[in-house]
C-alpha cells in the first residue's frame, strides 16, 4: 500500500526511430494510497501500457515512477511488490488452486502458517474454498480468472493491485458481485486498486477516480461526477454517459450566450473572447427537461421518437437538422407537438477546439 507518483511518464515502443510513435504521451499523476482508480478508454489508447509501466513489465521511455516517494523506475517487476491481473486468466496449469494462490507468498518466503491463513481467507472471499485441492487447469474459465484475481489479492502489503479488464470473461451476475467484493476489499484493507476497463458503467460504479484516456493521452482524471457533469473535452463527453453528451456546433452571440438555430441559449461561461469563433455547446441528455414554466433557454423541437428504456424514456427530438436526445422521467407525459425543451444554463459546457472553456 503506497502512494504512487507518475512523473512526466511517456512511452514509445520505437524510441530510437527518428519519428517515434508514442503509445503514451507525457503525463503526470498521483495515485493516492487506498483509493480505487479506473482507467477508461477505447482499445489501443495506452491503458495497458500504463499498467505495465507501473508494474515494471515495461520501462517508460521517459519520466519516473515513485512508490511512496522512492524512485522505482529502474526496479525490476519482481522487486516492486505489485500485483497485476490480466484480461484473460493466467493460471499455473501444473499446480492446484491452493498452490496457485500460495505462489506469490511462497516466492517471497512467507511462513507456512501465514500462507495458509491468507490463501484460505482469499479463497473465502472468492468462493474457491471447495476447489482448493483441485488441479487449477480443470476449472472453468471464470473460476480460473478468480484464481488470477486471488493471486493478486493474496498479498496484503502490495503497493497496488492493477487489474487489466479482469472481469471480461466472467458472467454478468458474478461480475457485479465481484466488483462489489473488490470495493469491500479496498474499503477493508485499504488496498490501492487500479482497474482498466473500456466499460464506462464498470468504471463509474467501481472507482473513486476515473482516468479517461484517448490515443495515448490522459484526457481527464476526476471523480465520476466531474467527468459526467464537466467533461474536459468533447471526447470525454461523448465517451462517458449513455446516450453521449448532446453537442451542438454554434457561435457566441453575447458575453454568455450562444445561438442554436436562431434560439439564444444562456450559459454560465464567459464567452467574451470567443466572438466569431467556432464553438460547441455540450449538454447531457439527463439535464434537458420538458419546459414547464421556464421562459428562457427553450428549444422548440419536433419529437422524432420516444423509446421506453424501462427506468426512463429516451426522447429523440429534431430541431432543423439538429438531433437532441433527452432522458425524461417515465411518468412525464410527452406532448406530441409543440414541445419545448429547457436547457439549464448551469449545466451547459462550452468547448472551443474540443476543449472545455
Amino acid at each position, binding site marked *: 500500500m503506497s502512494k504512487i507518483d507518475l512523473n512526466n511518464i511517456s512511452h514509445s515502443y520505437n524510441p530510437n526511430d527518428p519519428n517515434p510513435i508514442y503509445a503514451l504521451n507525457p503525463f503526470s499523476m498521483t495515485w493516492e494510497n487506498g483509493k480505487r482508480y479506473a482507467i477508461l478508454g477505447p482499445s489501443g489508447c495506452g491503458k495497458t501500457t500504463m499498467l505495465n509501466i507501473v*508494474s*515494471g*513489465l515495461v520501462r517508460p521511455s521517459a519520466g519516473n515512477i515513485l512508490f511512496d516517494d522512492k524512485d522505482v523506475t529502474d526496479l*525490476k*517487476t*519482481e522487486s516492486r*511488490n*505489485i*500485483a*497485476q491481473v*490480466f484480461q*484473460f486468466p*493466467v493460471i*499455473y*496449469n*501444473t*499446480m492446484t488452486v491452493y498452490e496457485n494462490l500460495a*505462489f*506469490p507468498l511462497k*516466492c*517471497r518466503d512467507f511462513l507456512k502458517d501465514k500462507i495458509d491463513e491468507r490463501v484460505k481467507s482469499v479463497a473465502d472471499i472468492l468462493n474457491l474454498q471447495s476447489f482448493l485441492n483441485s488441479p487449477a487447469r480443470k476449472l472453468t474459465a471464470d473460476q480460473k480468472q478468480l484464481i*488470477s484475481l486471488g*493471486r493478486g489479492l493474496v498479498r496484503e502489503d502490495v503497493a497496488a493491485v492493477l487489474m487489466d479488464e479482469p472481469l471480461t470473461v466472467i458472467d454478468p451476475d458474478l461480475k457485479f458481485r465481484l466488483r462489489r467484493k473488490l470495493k469491500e476489499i479496498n474499503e477493508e484493507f485499504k488496498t490501492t486498486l487500479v482497474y482498466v476497463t473500456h466499460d464506462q458503467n464498470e468504471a463509474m460504479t467501481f472507482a473513486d477516480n476515473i482516468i479517461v484516456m484517448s490515443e495515448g493521452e490522459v484526457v481527464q482524471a476526476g471523480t465520476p461526477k466531474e467527468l459526467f457533469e464537466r467533461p474536459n473535452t468533447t471526447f470525454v463527453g461523448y465517451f462517458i454517459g449513455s446516450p453521449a453528451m448532446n453537442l451542438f456546433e454554434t457561435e457566441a452571440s453575447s458575453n454568455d450566450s450562444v445561438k442554436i438555430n436562431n434560439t439564444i441559449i444562456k450559459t454560465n461561461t464567459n464567452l467574451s473572447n470567443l466572438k466569431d469563433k467556432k464553438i460547441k455547446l455540450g449538454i447531457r441528455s439527463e439535464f434537458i427537461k420538458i419546459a414547464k414554466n421556464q421562459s428562457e433557454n427553450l428549444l422548440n423541437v419536433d419529437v422524432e421518437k420516444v423509446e421506453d428504456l424501462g427506468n426512463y424514456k429516451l426522447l429523440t427530438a429534431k430541431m432543423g437538422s439538429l438531433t437532441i436526445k433527452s432522458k425524461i422521467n417515465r411518468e412525464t407525459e410527452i406532448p406530441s407537438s409543440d414541445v419545448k425543451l429547457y436547457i439549464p444554463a448551469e449545466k451547459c459546457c462550452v468547448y472551443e477546439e474540443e476543449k472545455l472553456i
Partner: protein
Amino acid sequence: MGKLYKFLKYSFITIWTVFVVAPFLWALTTSFKDFNSVNGGATYIPWVDFEPKLEGWKVLIKSPANGGVDIIEPYFNSLFVTCTASLISIVLGTLSAYALSRFTFKAGFVKNNDITFFFISQRIMPPIVLSIPFFLFLGAIDLLDSLIGLIVVYIVLLMPIAVWIMVDFFNKVPREIDETALIDGCNPYQAFFKVVLPNSIPGLIVAGMFCIIFGWIDFFFAFILTFTEVQLLPVKIVALNSSITPWWSLSASALVSVAPLIVVAFIVERYLSKGNLSGAIK
C-alpha cells in the same frame, strides 16, 4: 451413410494395421528360423510350417570367439550415445528456444527468426555434406572412433530439432504466464524453472521423442566416424550381413533394435491420447 462410413473406416484401419504389423510378424517368425526353413519356400506358422530354433537370437549374444556377433556392447553404446546426446540437446535446445521466444536479439540484420532458421538450416543440408567437416573436426581434436565424439556430433544434429519444436511451443505459451510469475515475485530464472518449464512438459516430451528417434536410427555418421574401438547398433546390424545372408539373426537384431522406440512410442502415446500434446506438434 453412417454404416458405409463405418465399414470403410474399419476396413481402412484393418488394412493399415496389417500393413504396419506384417513386417514385424515377418521379422519375428524369421528370427526363429534356420537356413533350411528360410530357403525351403515360404513358411509362416511355427511348429506347423517349420521347427522354431533359437540360433538367430543366440548368435547376437555370443562373443565372436564362439562364432557369435555380440551386439550387447554396441547396443549399450547406442543407448548411451542417444540418451546423452538427446538429454544435452533438450537442455540446451530448450534454453535457447526460450531465449529466442521471449527476448529480442539483434545483430545487424540478424534477428530472432533468423537465428531460429539458422538452427533449422543445419538439418536442411544433406548429411553427406556434413560428413567431411565432422570427420576432419573430430580428427583434429582426437575424438574419432570415440563415444564422446559421437555424442558431440549427435548434439549438433539433434539440437536443431529440439530448438525448432520448443520455439514453436514456447511461442504458444502466453507471455502473460512469465509476466505473472515476475509479478508474483519470481526472478526470470525462477519464472522459467518454476512456471514456464512445468507448463511445457508436453513440448519437452515431443522434442525428446524426436531426438531419441533420430539419434537411435542414425547409421550414416556412426558408420563414418567410428572404426573398431566403438561401434553403434545400426552399424553392427549391417555388419552382420555376409555372403550367406543370416536372415534369422538380422531379424532378431532388427526386433531388438526397434524395442526401445516401441517403449518410447507407448509412453508418448499415453500423452497423445490424453490430448495433452495439443499444440505441442503442428
